[in-house]
């Protein structure tokens, strides 16, 4: 279809398979979002990649053929058979965030498996730091602990708002932090203060990470926890600066991937290269049949 290709007719997709959530974004030639979908990442990544992609296409009222290029990112990126390219979530976040906030210099992304701090310029990743594997500095830190308390993650923010004197939580290790939480409970500490303490512990851990790079405004917070007002507050205090939060903090990676897909196509067209696309099938493959 290299002949008579009009960029204006083309669409581009990014799919971001994180350790806990899978997201897909479809954009048009102007870079406007045509569809954005997210769903939990289960054991069946590939199955899910297909589902999310299909949903996204339905949402945009498109067929797979309409999509000129698909870029996969995130933890499970190598598991998207229909993707044209795989790019790390770091570059995609950089791209996506800068699209939403052109003035962004620093991106703090707190994901499920890791926390990242990115230094960005005009949509390019120029430096980064990721937490050493101890999950004390990741979203799982909150999730697991909330889980063990029988609290919904959504309720964390509301609870922490009621805190009067946040407790000190050692930020060594998730498992250990949970033991500590239980100890605080057994000592009759208020749950609100404990939750606030957890937010602070996580925020401090991530802030230290960000300081490795040097924090320059504007600072954008992304990832699941960015939806947690309590965490945004704690993070702002630890970095002691204003934080920008995208409306859809989970989607920046997928958006970035879609934007990179668009750039890739434009590049190919400019070089007069054919948009050779591998024949794609959204086969409903699953691991457990």
């Amino acid at each position, binding site marked *: 279809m290299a002949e008579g290709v009009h960029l204006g007719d083309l669409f581009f997709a990014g799919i971001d398979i994180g350790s806990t959530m899978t997201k897909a974004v479809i954009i048009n030639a102007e870079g406007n979002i045509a569809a954005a979908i997210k769903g939990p990442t289960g054991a069946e990544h590939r199955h899910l990649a297909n589902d999310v992609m299909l949903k996204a296409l339905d949402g945009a009222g498109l067929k797979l053929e309409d999509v000129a290029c698909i870029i996969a990112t995130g933890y499970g990126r190598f598991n998207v058979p229909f993707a044209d390219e795989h790019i790390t979530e770091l570059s995609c976040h950089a791209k996506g965030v800068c699209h939403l906030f052109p003035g962004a210099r620093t991106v703090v992304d707190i994901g499920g498996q890791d926390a990242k701090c990115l230094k960005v310029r005009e949509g390019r990743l120029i430096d980064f730091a990721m937490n050493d594997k101890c999950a004390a500095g990741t979203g799982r830190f909150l999730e697991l602990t909330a889980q063990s308390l029988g609290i919904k993650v959504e309720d964390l923010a509301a609870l922490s708002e009621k805190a009067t004197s946040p407790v000190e939580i050692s930020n060594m290790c998730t498992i250990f932090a949970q*033991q500590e939480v239980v100890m605080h409970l057994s000592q009759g500490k208020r749950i609100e203060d404990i939750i606030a303490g957890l937010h602070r512990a996580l925020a401090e851990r991530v802030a230290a990470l960000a300081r490795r790079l040097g924090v320059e405004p504007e600072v954008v917070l992304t990832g699941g926890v960015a939806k947690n007002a309590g965490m945004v507050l704690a993070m702002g205090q630890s970095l002691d600066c204003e934080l920008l939060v995208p409306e859809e903090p989970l989607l920046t990676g997928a958006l970035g991937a879609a934007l990179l897909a668009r750039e890739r196509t434009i590049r190919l067209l400019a070089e007069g290269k054919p948009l050779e696309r591998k024949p794609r099938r959204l086969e409903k493959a699953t691991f*457990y049949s």
Partner: protein
Amino acid sequence: MVCYMGIDIGSAYSKGVLLCGGELVASCVRLSGIDHHATAAAIREQLLASLDVNEPQTVLVVATGVGAGNVGFASNKMSDIVCTARGINRLFPEARTAIDIGAQSTRAIKLDSRGMVTDFAVSEKCAAGSGRFIEVIANVLRIDLEEFGSLSLKSKNPVTFSTGCAVFGESEAITRVVEGVAKEDIAAGVNLALGAKIASLAKRIRLQPPCAVCGGGALNRGLIAAVESELGIRLLLPAEPRTVTALGAAIQAVPKPA
């Protein structure tokens, strides 16, 4: 008549046991949640409900577990390690070792014929080796804990987990999933990894058979099988492994003969 109540407020679950005339008349398990006072009261209600309200009762209560301090109505607090030993001793007088697989930590306890503790070891904070590992991976695999054990027993070739830490283990599990490894093989791998950690904890105190196992982890048959093969012995398994420590607490409530 006099009844004896044992309440064990654990990090994840709280358990209660009621003994009357030496007989176990009631036991219960519920989430510890965030209000240990309320949990303890609820357990008490539930246990007392099984008694004949017309008959006047005296109930002596002993509390144990991390939240023991919140059981205001308890006449006494006791160490959970001691209670576990007494509980196991009551169920299996011949047992010389007890392994308690809890949500946050695993304990290996040696005991004598009277249920007195002769030695014990608690899993290292960082080395995980606790039931939490299973919960985390079960969450990755989207299966519930009950399924976990039976599923793992179906495995033909378990994956090797090079770590015992729940958090590192989680990313390892996800990697395997991405590679398309079967659920049961991952589950079995987890049980083997944890089983090995538990076994080495037991070896650390020079385990002496017969050995009984209790705690929530004991409900996971795959895990028990893994520990058994690591240690090369059969383990004694109580009907209700989770309330053993509470049972021990109830026994502790019985006044010692002067």
